[in-house]
């Protein structure tokens, strides 16, 4: 694995390797010394052309726990606001010998452009591009689902566990959501079934080929209770057209209301409630749901750091593989 651009082209084995490694990275957070020397002397650049706090902080924490040096670059207050192109920015970073670039951009496909061009010779991690993909979010969601599965099935370890047979309902703005797309590809690869629930106005064209079921009614999707419900954020900054009449109507039809929570509890279901954050309380998720024991929101944040440590480690370890080594040495690895 040289770059992490999408979950669509991530193989089953690669996904499990990332998750198994992330499990071990999580243990580092529990120790007295919360640092590993694996990326000592390497430089990771957070290149954020779009606002983000939690993803950037999560990547920064991950890189620092692996002892890498971190450069934060945000478009605001940088030369980008003076009109510098992605190419020139990338070449500037290359001149500073960055080993990995974590990029978030409002244009779908910009991480791929960066990875395939010869502007910079670094590992590229997609931290969200337009309405395309957000692979590390999907990986942390998969890690959370895996933990949920191990808990409900009474397993001791999640190592090697996939999502075979699980049913995940993803609710909300599928049209604009890169998280929904990345989740769909990764969960499907790992064996889970995905149902999208959204108002018809918030579904993209061409979904017919996606390996998922589409419903317009949340109550229909919650009966029988799925293993997990992922509430997508209503992205107010992208709501430029009239996608739904009022916030109240959205909350009533597609929000996780206290009534829906009550119905799950009454049915005795083990359904987990997930949210990629930041939450709009009272809109797509009620406070009762967000603060219930079913909510995995904080687990997701914690797993975010572990998954990103795992990805950075797996991308940057072994990048000198082409350098010839003494073959006799290879046994003693």
């Amino acid at each position: 694995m040289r770059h992490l651009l999408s979950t669509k082209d991530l193989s089953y084995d690669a996904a499990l390797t990332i998750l198994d490694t992330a499990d071990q990275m999580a243990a580092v957070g529990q120790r007295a010394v919360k640092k590993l020397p694996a990326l000592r002397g390497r430089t990771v650049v957070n290149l954020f052309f779009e606002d983000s706090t939690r993803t950037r902080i999560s990547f920064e924490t991950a890189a620092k726990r692996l002892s890498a040096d971190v450069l934060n670059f945000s478009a605001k207050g940088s030369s980008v606001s003076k009109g510098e192109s992605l190419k020139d920015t990338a070449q500037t970073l290359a001149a500073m010998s960055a080993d990995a670039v974590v990029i978030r951009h409002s244009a779908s496909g910009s991480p791929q452009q960066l990875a395939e061009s010869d502007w910079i010779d670094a590992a590229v991690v997609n931290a969200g591009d337009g309405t395309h993909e957000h692979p590390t979010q999907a990986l942390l969601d998969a890690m959370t689902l895996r933990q949920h599965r191990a808990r409900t099935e009474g397993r001791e370890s999640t190592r090697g566990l996939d999502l075979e047979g699980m049913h995940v309902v993803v609710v909300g703005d599928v049209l604009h959501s890169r998280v929904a797309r990345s989740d769909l590809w990764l969960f499907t690869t790992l064996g889970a079934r995905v149902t999208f629930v959204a108002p018809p106005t918030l579904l993209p064209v061409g979904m017919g080929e996606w390996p998922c079921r589409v419903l317009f009614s949340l109550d229909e999707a919650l009966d029988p209770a799925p293993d997990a419900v992922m509430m997508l954020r209503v992205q107010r900054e992208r709501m430029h057209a009239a996608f739904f009449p009022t916030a109240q109507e959205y909350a009533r039809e597609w929000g996780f209301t206290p009534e829906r929570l009550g119905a799950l509890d009454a049915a005795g279901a083990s359904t987990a409630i997930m949210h990629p954050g930041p939450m709009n309380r009272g809109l797509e998720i009620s406070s009762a749901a967000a603060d219930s024991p079913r909510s995995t929101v904080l687990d997701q944040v914690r797993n975010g750091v572990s998954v990103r440590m795992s990805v950075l480690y797996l991308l940057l370890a072994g990048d000198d593989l082409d350098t010839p080594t003494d073959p006799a040495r290879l046994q003693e690895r």
Partner: protein
Amino acid sequence: MNDGTSVAGPPTGPVTARVILSAADIDRALTRIAHEILESNKGSSDLVLLGIPRRGYPLAQRIAAKIAATDPGFDAAASLGQLDVTMFRDDLRKNPARTPQPTRIPVQGIDGRTVVLVDDVLYSGRTVRAALDALVDVGRPRVVRLAVLVDRGHRELPIRADHVGKNLPTSSQEKVRVRLAETDPEPRSAEHADCVVIEAPAPGAGA
């Protein structure tokens, strides 16, 4: 750490394999190591055994069971752990990334106690160096000792083992494979359920 599942290695041509230690030999070596550990620690108080994955851990388990059989005061479960060294290796950039194994430290911790690191094969000493670094991040033991099943020589660092199952002079062209029932379940004869094998390029094979 001698990873027998690794595909990397010298050009794979015809090899001759020779069993050096059988299951009974390994068992006797581990019994002796268990007694040596008790002797040098003057008993089993404050003793912690940490196995280095993958094959160091089952060896540490067996040594702990033998110590417990000799000294009923020794709580094998509370004094046994596993220490993963993957993230501390000095060759991370030169080799494909490996999935780290869990690190499990006994709940009492290792501060002020005697830690015995257990591994299968001692070769360059680089795994042990990584283990010493990993240990620093976990706590500050009073003493750290090293027990290995096989010492095959060719050290690259000033590291030596305190307890050795067998000293095995080897050529660097040879590979030493340790097979244990726990980690290598492929069928073998009962006599060789656990074994140590030397693989050498067959003479005249041009390897």
